[in-house]
């Protein structure tokens, strides 16, 4: 039996999770696979297309239950996306499943032209995103996908924070007639508390109210933001707002602007390069807002990324409760200095 993967949450972070009543749930990948299978059982037009990713995409049960609705194309991402576009154009709800790193780099032109430009309802599912394949090195890290796809017209980019957002995102993609990129990792996730129900792409989910610092995460960094908010409030009484920006595009501009009105600092967190992702999207809004609060972008810097487990990489770059706390405090101090 192999040793369990180290947790991306420090011991202290896990203690704050207990204080917040968070419990460890399933990997978003598992929830994706189950949700897709349930949808496909009820609609034979829902199909999965995989590039030898039946195992890594947890689609084995799907293939066994509905072999007629699963298409295997082998290790060929360009073909994967082209086929998905063709299937979508003849009435299928095609979910093209492949590791995010390959899907969005090798098949970028197919995503741009066959899916987005042709405007067909295909969903591109980037699995094991970010540094999920931490130890496998930069070939397998997906730190460019937000940046690449944000620059492409006509695609909704969804990075769900937890199991709830994942299942809702899959259902939404199946119901809506448009190109979608859905991205998540493979580690088990904390379930996040929600005071308000509903999942609405384009509209950030507020997980915690606060009016001094806004912590805006996307995907699986959101839980780190929430833990950081708890720690900041406990240790320094800082009132933190936490947003799950599950839709990287179109960005919820209003939620960002709302944060600028009351908060003196904003910290963004993402499992992506600091270039071209959530942070720069938020920066783009702030720069046009005038009198904006200080912004700190947490992500992977523009360097030869360290390898190791996902936990090692998160710790190294401070995409963690501790790192986000430090960034928030630093940003607040910077804001004071400016005044």
């Amino acid at each position: 039996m192999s040793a369990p993967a180290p947790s991306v949450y420090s011991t202290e972070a896990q203690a704050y999770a207990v204080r917040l009543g968070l419990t460890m749930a399933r990997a978003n990948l598992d929830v994706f696979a189950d949700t897709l299978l349930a949808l496909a059982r009820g609609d034979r037009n829902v199909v999965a297309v995989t590039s030898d990713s039946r195992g890594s995409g947890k689609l084995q049960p799907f293939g066994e239950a509905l072999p007629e609705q699963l298409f295997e194309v082998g290790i060929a991402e360009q073909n994967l996306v082209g086929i998905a576009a063709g299937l979508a154009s003849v009435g299928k709800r095609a979910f093209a499943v492949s590791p995010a790193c390959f899907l969005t780099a090798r098949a970028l032109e197919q995503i741009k032209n066959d899916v987005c430009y042709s405007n067909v309802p295909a969903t591109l599912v980037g699995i094991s995103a970010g540094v999920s394949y931490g130890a496998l090195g930069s070939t397998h890290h997906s730190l460019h996908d937000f940046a690449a796809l944000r620059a492409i017209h006509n695609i909704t980019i969804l990075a769900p924070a937890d199991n709830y957002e994942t299942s809702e995102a899959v259902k939404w993609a199946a119901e809506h007639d448009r190109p979608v990129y859905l991205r998540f990792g493979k580690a088990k996730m904390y379930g996040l508390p929600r005071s308000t129900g509903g999942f609405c792409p384009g509209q950030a989910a507020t997980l915690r109210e606060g009016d001094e610092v806004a912590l805006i995460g996307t995907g699986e960094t959101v839980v780190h933001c929430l833990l950081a908010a708890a720690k900041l409030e406990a240790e320094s009484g800082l009132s933190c707002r936490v947003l799950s920006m599950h839709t990287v595009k179109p960005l919820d501009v209003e939620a960002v602007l709302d944060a600028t009105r009351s908060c003196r600092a904003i910290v963004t967190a993402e499992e992506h390069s600091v270039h071209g992702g959530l942070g720069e999207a938020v920066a783009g809004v702030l720069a046009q807002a005038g009198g904006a609060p200080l912004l700190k972008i947490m992500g992977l810097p523009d360097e030869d990324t360290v390898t190791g487990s996902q936990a090692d990489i998160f710790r190294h770059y401070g995409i963690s409760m501790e790192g986000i706390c430090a960034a928030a405090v630093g940003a607040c101090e910077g804001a004071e200095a400016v005044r």
Partner: protein
Amino acid sequence: MTESNALTDDELRLLSVRCRQDVLKYISAAGAGHTGGSLSCVDILNVLYNRVLRVSPETFGDPHRDRYVQSKGHSVEALYVVLAHRGFFPIERLETLCQYRSPFIGHPTRKSPGIEMNTGALGHGLPISVGMALGGKRDNAPFRVFTLIGDGELAEGSNWEAAMSAAHYGLDNLTAIIDYNTLQISGRTRDVCSNEPIDEKFASFGWGVVWVDGHDFAGLTAAASAPARSGKPTCVIANTVKGRGVSFMEDVAKWHHGVPAPDEYEGAMRELTAAEQALLEARR
């Protein structure tokens, strides 16, 4: 579903000459376009749209219509002209070709009537067509899927990914037609980067392969009307001449995206008008 109106060989010959005139006319007016490749595939397109494809302006929304995807999107001018003559839109609309906000841009888009998918970047049509054919197979739908690929375009690896999957899934509802004019922008395809032997490559990938004269209507019709249940996708390699129909453009690489100067345009139109007159004379 309305069957297309099957035209006689004579009628197709005349139609193709007129289409070539229109290709030159609208490319010249626009000052942009892919002349050589358009002239090479006009006959193929006329056979498809007037004899083979079960699609018409009236049935374009029918989910059971046959699909045509032009992978070699660079020759969209030929497709526009053929679609216009088939009644998809009034040909005068091509006066806006490549102009500001025109739906008739320099590569196929679904903004223009009759176009199935946006193409133009090379190596995309076959994977898309495989997806369409797979979807049709799984639904036992009656439609067939056709895609036109340039021979130079076969250098794009995505074609071979798609060729593998088409055979793997036994897509006998799929036909790829190679516009084998042996030229690309930089010269002879065999000199740029030889992809010969194309027939053996497709055959070894599990396709049924047929060679035809890409300007012979009967041969093209027979090849494109292959049996519906062969268990294999079909590759039709159509021997064509780039710039076909205009003596000084034939088999000359520079006409890949050359636009005729006024005197060249006059000369080309004189030749095509003479060809049209000869066909009309022969009818009397």
